[in-house]
């Protein structure tokens, strides 16, 4: 949040219509995402109740646990879900492409993408992954072979959400509210139906009106994983009880009837969200993709390729907890990536860059004077060092000696030589280096011309190499020494799921 986005919220509140918070889309959106809407039983750690899942808006798969407290039925649900999810991920394990760069390897040409309604959906996915990935297909409490594989994939998707650069799994509310500002608080933006009301109201209605209507849980059931308590108390309780009674009294037609009634009730809660999810995907797709998104998606494809190979080659499931070295590496990586993504977003999007202009970390203006052919002859070798003067009305924090980068010429460095102020405007004298070809005269267009609008920021979008950490087997004694290699234990496979 910043003054700019808060101003956008104020404008949205006054006009009753959501306002753009970005001019381009900063997340990748698959042409064929897998929409996953889980519902959980209230009060339990991770008791799946039902889910609507699929990659075709016209063909959702409705999965239901008729008795959510029954362990076997939960694993049957996991097996049903595995059938859908594993078929979907497998469909991306065919076409390959070169990874590019210095690495001669191959990767899958595209990657799967999981879309859930909200951050709660990500948390549910993580827990479902945790409760299924250690199970075994043989021995006591055996489960279907696909169940532990499902657990590993769900864990993989949920883990990737920790990286701000990844789009392998997205929560619709997060993605939408990053691109639009509504006239309500961020807390209220976590309701997908309400958020979409603001962004895309039905004809003849303002965003504020549509949002107010969408707050009614009867009209727009909660988008999960939590259900509406009134629905729990007035509908779900009786229908689950009917299923339980029918099972105890011998099943047969009564059981089928009770199960069908429960399925119908859960479908009424899930179907509206299914429509909302595809509308959210469509709205996001309507925004032009930001320039750096493709590069970040390539990294997602690399991660997907690696994980698919790891499972195929019989590698162990993700451990319960990270060791000291991998935790430190993960944290350092997240911080580094966060900085990189923030810079890339600003370079791709003038509305995001405006936030940095507000704080003085960037400024924009016009070139007032230019010496494009200036050569510095003071050193051992004559070098091309053009100078330009930028005049701006923005606040400028940069001081002489600082190095700046312009989104229009990211490979060129601009060193601040002098900053002067006159009549409320600031003139910044910059000396340019790089990105102009090898000769002593710059290539056409490589130096900004007089009158050209330009923007300079105190950060670049460049790749920062990860810091060096010891290998896991060299973990120093201060951090507990090398962690024991994770070996799946029998105990994990038999763990309670009550």
């Amino acid at each position, binding site marked *: 949040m910043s003054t700019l986005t*808060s101003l956008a919220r104020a404008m949205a509140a006054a006009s009753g219509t959501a306002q753009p918070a970005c*001019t381009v889309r900063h997340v990748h959106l698959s042409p064929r995402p897998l929409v996953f809407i889980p519902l959980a039983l209230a009060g339990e*750690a991770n008791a799946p109740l039902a889910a609507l899942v699929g990659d075709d808006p016209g063909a959702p798969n409705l999965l239901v646990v008729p008795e959510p407290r029954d362990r076997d039925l939960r694993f049957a649900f996991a097996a049903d879900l595995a059938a859908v999810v594993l078929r979907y991920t497998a469909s991306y394990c065919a076409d390959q492409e070169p990874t590019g760069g210095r690495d001669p390897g191959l990767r899958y040409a595209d990657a799967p993408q999981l879309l859930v309604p909200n951050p709660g959906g990500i*948390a549910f996915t993580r827990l479902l992954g945790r409760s299924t990935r250690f199970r075994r297909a043989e021995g006591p409490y055996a489960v279907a072979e696909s169940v532990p594989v499902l657990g590993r994939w769900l864990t993989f998707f949920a883990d990737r959400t920790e990286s701000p650069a990844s789009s392998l799994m997205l929560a619709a509310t997060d993605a939408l509210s990053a691109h639009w500002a509504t006239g309500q608080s961020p807390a*209220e933006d976590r309701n997908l139906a309400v958020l979409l009301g603001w962004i895309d109201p039905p004809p003849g209605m303002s965003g504020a009106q549509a949002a107010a209507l969408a707050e009614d849980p009867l009209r727009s059931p909660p988008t999960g994983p939590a259900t509406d*308590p009134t629905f729990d108390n007035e509908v779900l309780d009786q229908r689950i009880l009917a299923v339980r009674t029918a099972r105890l009294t011998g099943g047969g037609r009564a059981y089928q009837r009770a199960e069908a009634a429960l399925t119908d009730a859960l479908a009424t809660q899930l179907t509206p969200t299914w429509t909302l999810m595809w509308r959210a995907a469509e709205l996001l797709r309507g925004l032009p993709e930001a320039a750096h998104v493709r590069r970040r998606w390539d990294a997602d494809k690399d991660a997907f390729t690696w994980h698919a190979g790891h499972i195929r080659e019989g590698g162990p499931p993700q451990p319960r907890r990270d060791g000291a070295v991998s935790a430190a590496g993960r944290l350092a990586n997240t911080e580094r990536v966060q900085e990189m993504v923030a810079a890339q977003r600003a370079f791709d*999007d003038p509305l995001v860059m405006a936030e940095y202009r507000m704080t003085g970390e960037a400024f924009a203006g016009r070139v007032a004077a230019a010496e494009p052919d200036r050569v510095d002859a003071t050193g051992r070798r004559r070098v091309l060092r053009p100078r330009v003067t930028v005049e701006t009305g923005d606040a400028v924090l940069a001081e002489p000696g600082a190095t700046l980068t312009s989104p229009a010429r990211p490979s060129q460095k601009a060193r601040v030589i002098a900053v002067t102020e006159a009549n409320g405007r600031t003139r910044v004298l910059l000396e340019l280096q790089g990105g102009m070809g090898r000769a002593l005269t710059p290539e056409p267009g490589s130096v900004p011309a007089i009158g050209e609008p330009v923007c300079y920021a105190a950060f670049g979008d460049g790749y920062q190499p990860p810091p060096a950490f010891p290998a896991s087997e060299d973990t120093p004694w201060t951090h507990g020494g090398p962690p024991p290699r994770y070996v799946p234990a029998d105990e994990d496979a038999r763990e309670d799921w009550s």
Partner: protein
Amino acid sequence: MTGPEARLARLRGRSLPRSHNARTIAALASNPGCARRAILDAAGADKQRLAAYAGFPAPFGQSRFALARGNAFEAQVKAEGAAQLLTLLRTHLNLPIPEAHYDDLGEVGGNASLDLRHARTRTLLARAAASQDEAGTMFDHPLLRLEVGGRHAFLEPDLVAFRLHGRFHVIEIKSFAVIDGQADGDKVAAAAIQSAVYVLALRDALAEQHIPPEAVSHETILVCPENFSNRPVAVSLDVRKQLTVLRRQLSRMARIADLLDLLPPDLTFDLDPDRDGVPRRRPAELAAAIRQVEARYAPECLSTCEMCFFCRDEARGCTAALGRDAREELGGVEHVQTVLRLAGRIDRPAPGTDLAEAAALLRQAARLRAEALREAV
């Protein structure tokens, strides 16, 4: 009768009084400037019912599944003189408890009056604090008291206080799971602040007997189901930070008596029930009565206060309704319309004022935003 008690009784009207609990005190302490919540809670008014009757039913309820699960888990760990809990504490706290006493303070000789129960809780706790007995004692259903806005609020925790090596530990039983040593951060935070309320109340009770506050440990014990099972696991929570926050917020709260003085003497939230208990008061009239008490709405109220939709409706057009951060980032300007007039240079405040500073900020933001959107087209 004109004292604060009589005034509060009049405000509540003919409905049954609701008592405070750790959750309501924690919620109140998170928004100490809200006179509406302070008054309604002090009067013991049924906020859920009032909000619904005034046309703004609260957006939350409790699922019977969650309720059943919570009760079942608590009953399970407390069953048979808290046998499971004892085993757990023995390993968790490394307790040498070959034999431990278990005192149920739920009733006093069949009499469950609040004052009597509180007196008995105090006596027993003081006796335990004074004794040299090394065996631990668990107190189930103690009744504590905390001063909130200059009035005593009774707290009826379902917790158990445990005495060990001369110190009391507050134990909180929750039914959310701890999975691989980690639990939902929001839920742990809520449990920590509730435990802190009990620590504070327990310290108050002992202070009356001249027992120093260190007798109650700032390390409370949270008991939750482990992983995906029903097996309980105990973790220690350090609630020092929550205690500081709570103490500060409670001291910032205006005295209820002072707040009452600001209200018209005949104000009441009574629903005017007929002989069958059916309310006859006009909802608009009730709403007007509620509006007499000033509220301080923030979006955080949406998850903690039954009156939230009522207050949100009232706060429409205020920057506070967009979130505390938003209001601050908009230069602290109160109304959305003022923000837009300042940003659009329609209002030009005199230089040197606070508003002029906010205006400069907003004008710059509006200029940058407009420029960026033009550039993107």
